[in-house]
């Protein structure tokens, strides 16, 4: 079944998820994957939905149903096969004084060795900026050298970085 990528973003209030998902359900939409969270008071939804309805039809329905200040975007996307991991899972933590360019600086070091970030969260509390990234590293990566490169880049940015293997417990 064709898939749509849907984003809804705007001032948080009760009922956004209910309004979006009931509209999708009425048009045969099945939520295959989603991330919904509150970002600095803005509620942000990103969904992959399988449906026979067209992107323009779903967008029209959502715009009609939702408060006018919410940003809605709907695009058709090709189905992606679930690819296996490209390598070993690691967690990168960065913390330090807030400034522009921390995420850019650290993620570029990971990208340079072919690291694939699968999840990333940032938090700002007071002047403390925190980044936690989950990254898959190809087995060819020299992990101690990467750790040194991350530390060096972090120190240029005035922050601290830690790279360690992700522990995945299978029960």
């Amino acid at each position, binding site marked *: 079944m064709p898939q749509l990528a849907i984003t809804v973003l705007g001032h948080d209030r009760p009922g956004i998820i209910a309004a979006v998902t009931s509209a999708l359900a009425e048009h045969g939409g099945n939520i295959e994957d989603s991330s919904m969270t509150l970002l600095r008071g803005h509620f942000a939804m990103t969904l992959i939905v399988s449906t026979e309805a067209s992107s323009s039809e779903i967008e029209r329905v959502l715009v009609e149903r939702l408060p006018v200040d919410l940003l809605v975007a709907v695009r058709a996307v090709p189905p992606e096969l679930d690819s296996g991991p490209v390598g070993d899972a690691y967690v990168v933590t960065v*913390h330090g004084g807030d400034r522009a360019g921390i995420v850019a600086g650290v993620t570029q070091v990971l990208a340079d060795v072919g690291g694939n970030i699968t*999840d990333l969260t940032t938090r700002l*509390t*007071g002047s*403390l900026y*925190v980044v*936690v990234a989950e990254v898959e590293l190809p087995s060819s990566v020299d992990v101690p050298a990467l750790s040194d490169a991350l530390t060096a880049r972090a120190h240029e940015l005035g922050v601290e970085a*830690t790279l360690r293997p992700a522990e995945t417990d299978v029960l």
Partner: protein
Amino acid sequence: MTLPAGRVRPVVRAPDAILSTRCDEVDPRSPSVAQLAADLLATQAVSPGCVGLAANQVGVAARVFSVDVSVHPKTRASHGAFVLVNPRIDEASRNEKGREGCMSVPDLTGDVKRATRLVVVGYAPGTGVEVVITTDAFEARAIQHEIDHIDGLIFIDRVAGAHALFPRRRYL
């Protein structure tokens, strides 16, 4: 030996560089270390919910920390309120994930994996007597959190993943 009267010291917060500094070993018998130990216990005692404090959290880059988990509900073994100088972990096993907070990171908590069985060796402030503490559960977690501090690490350096960091709920 009894410690001198402790003074409550201000607790530094991330991103202060001293929290990322590996602290130095000190002479456990020195009067300044005895005073530092008393200050850690005094500061911890007036801080609600505080179960441990490392010297660099009060601005001193020394391998000294205090712990007191005696009134915490997750505690099994407890050695009351104590201070260790130049600690080292001799045995650590049975890792479990648990939620941690920190006075130096007041707005966040995180899930961190720690050993739940622990043997730690250190020295008592003042006398310099070697102390071996065998403990478990929450006291083991608190000790590992404090030893991380004096190694220049905070719990954020050990959070389990991108969804293991949380805003701290405040009920005040």
